[in-house]
């Protein structure tokens, strides 16, 4: 069985955390939640998450701040911003700071799941691209050695 993907949800609204956690777990993800930016940072340090859903407004810091921090520390992690307060600026800022998607509350569950899936798939592809490159590199080395050129 394939290893469960880890997802971190950061939101100050407990009900949202619960509902989305339930939905994502129903879809087979391993889900952790954090209510504050600080808690989120601690959790990302302690464990690897494939993807994080970040609310743009948090009690202790701006969601964008948290985003830039996480992006700096764990660039491979997929980050989806969810905001109740949509603006183009916000969106552009978020994307520039390393967000991989930008969703508006209330986001339809199907759309949320679709986005999560898409992003995780993108992550997988990126990783496999790296693996391919490595194996390609090894293959080429072997070919060189075999041909005795080196």
């Amino acid at each position, binding site marked *: 069985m394939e290893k469960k993907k880890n997802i971190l949800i950061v939101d100050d609204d407990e009900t*949202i955390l619960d509902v989305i956690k339930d*939905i994502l777990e*129903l879809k087979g993800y391993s889900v952790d939640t954090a209510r504050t930016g600080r808690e989120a940072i601690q959790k990302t340090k302690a464990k690897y998450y494939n993807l994080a859903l970040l609310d743009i407004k948090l009690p202790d810091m701006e969601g964008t701040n948290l985003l830039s921090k996480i992006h700096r520390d764990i660039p491979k992690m997929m980050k989806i911003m*969810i905001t*109740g307060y949509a603006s*183009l600026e916000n969106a552009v800022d978020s994307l520039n700071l390393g967000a991989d998607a930008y969703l508006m*509350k*209330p986001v339809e*569950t199907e759309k949320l799941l679709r986005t999560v899936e898409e992003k995780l798939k993108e992550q997988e592809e990126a990783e496999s691209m790296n693996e391919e490159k490595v194996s390609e590199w090894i293959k080429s080395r072997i070919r060189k050695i075999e041909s005795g050129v080196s």
Partner: protein
Amino acid sequence: MNNETKVDVNAFNELLNALVFLGNVSTKILGMPDVNTVFKVLEKESSKSLLYNMSIFLLANSGSRLKIAAASEFYRKNKIFEHLLGVSLEKLRINIAKSSLLTQTVNEEKTLEAIFADLIREISASERCDEVIRMFGLQKRRVILSPLYRHKRVFGILIIDAIDSTDQSVTVAKIFAQQISTVIEFVEKQLKYKKTAEKLRGYEEKYRASFEKAMDAIFLADAETGILVDCNHAACKLVKRKKSEIVGQHQRTLHPPEEVAGEFSKTFTLHLKEDEGQVLETKVITKDGEVRDVEVKANLVEIAGRKILQGIFRDITETKKMERELIHERDLLQVLMDNIPDTIYFKDVNSRFTRINLAQARMLGVKSPEEAVGKTDFDFFTLEHAKDAYIDEQKIVRTGMPIVSKVERIRRADGKFLWVTATKVPIRDSAGRIVGIVGISRDITETKQMQDELEHYSKHLEEIVEQRTTELRRAERLAAIGETAAMVGHDLRNPLQSMLGTLYLLREKIDSAHCESRDKQEFEGLLKRVDEEIKYMNKIISDLQDFAGPTKVNLTETDINDVIKDTLASITIPKTINVSVMISKSLPKLMVDPTLMRRVLTNLILNAVQAISDTGKIGIEAFINGEDAIINITDTGVGIPEENLPKIFQPLFTTKAKGQGFGLATCKKLINLQNSEIVVKSEVGKGSTFSIKIPLKR
């Protein structure tokens, strides 16, 4: 005899000498003052000779007596002779009638030679006559009596008493007497002349004095020639010329050219004719060319046989100047009074008009100011106003306190009501007594109206300000509400998110639950309803946020075609509605914010869809109209009632059951943010057209 002859010759010679002397005297007679002096001179001359005596008797007034006028020393000094004759020489009277000799001489004008003794006897009343004759030896002495003439009439007798007279002596005496007569006549003539001359001189001096001292300038001019013959000091002063520069000149030279007609000055001619003695006005010109006004009175006088016009000139330049100034001032006042739009009136102490200006005449409705004289306000105004004015005026007359700028409402003659400010002040005479009032009123009707309008306007302005303030407050409140709503909306999004999530979970649960498929369908229907309501709630929040939230505008070159396509793609339009899009190929890219445009178009198209209850058409077109690009969204929906048209872009205005009235308000806000305009045309039952006007030039 020789001796006697000698003596005779001597006496004769001496007589001749006297005659010559007399001739000399007559040539010097101018120095002789009177007849008596002539006789005294003769006396003196005759006393030089011892050879003859001379006496002169003059007829007394009666003509029958003689009195002695002159006598030789012989008579005058011989007191005994006087005494004896009983008559003093000084007062000798001889009665002619008693003496034939004297009678003959006087009456018959004869020169006689007679015996002295006979003459004495004839003229003497004394008894001692013969004794005297003997005593003085007059027996042999002879006398010559000769008449003295004046104006060919005998007026006296010359008696020459010669020691030894001859025929020649008689002739000489006769000539002597004639000579004396001539001299006397001459002297008397001279004397008469002199007396006249003196009299004349006295008169002239007197005249000259007053003439010279006269305050008025006096010119004397020959009436025939006009030549000036004399003038006084004042005259010289008047024309600033010396007397020598006046006398001998023509009288017209005294006057400036305009006062001259023909040979003479106009007044000279008039004074010579009908206006003699009249006072006329003319002008004189001074030496330095100054023209002065004068009054002239002239009379014709005769001096030394010549007709002279005596002109008395009085300088009235100052008077005239004052008069002119007075007239000028009066004219000025008149001009002022007649042209000032304010009404001016003078009244006596009984409030009767004494003088008014044209404006007041118009106010009163009289044709000329004179018509109002003597009348009062009661003749022209309403009783009420006239009474008030009368009371005011009488108070001024009584107290002397003026009324200044009193605002009055009066009815003009033509019935029009006017607002005026009236000022009334007392007029006082030189003694300070109030003799009337002068009033001036200004029509302030227009000002008053303007003031009223202004007041009204300012009141109105207050209303406007109040209205604006209310609107502003409302807008502020709306903004606050909007902001709050947006905040609330934001907070609502979280529960909505939870609800959406929960719905999803519920569906999943129902899917996997063991129950009837009919029940499942029913559940699904209920869930869908909740889902839709959540979406609708979300839309409300979005609208609120769009309207209330700050919006950044990013104008970029935008292909409006793409925006319309994207918009249509994102909206589900029922199949019963036919949508047509017509975009002019010449339409360039527009400088707009594509995101905002999309939201506006979305809103407008959704509105159009909602307006069409069943089937209909939505037309979207874009084209250029002059300087602008126009985007029209037309529907064949229900239309908007006319009374709602002005309100539809206002926030919180809606006719929809489900709507908060932020849609069109947001559209307008977003369009205006792009410097564009949005308008609507609509007809109930036919449909509406929303038209966006975007300027091509930015």
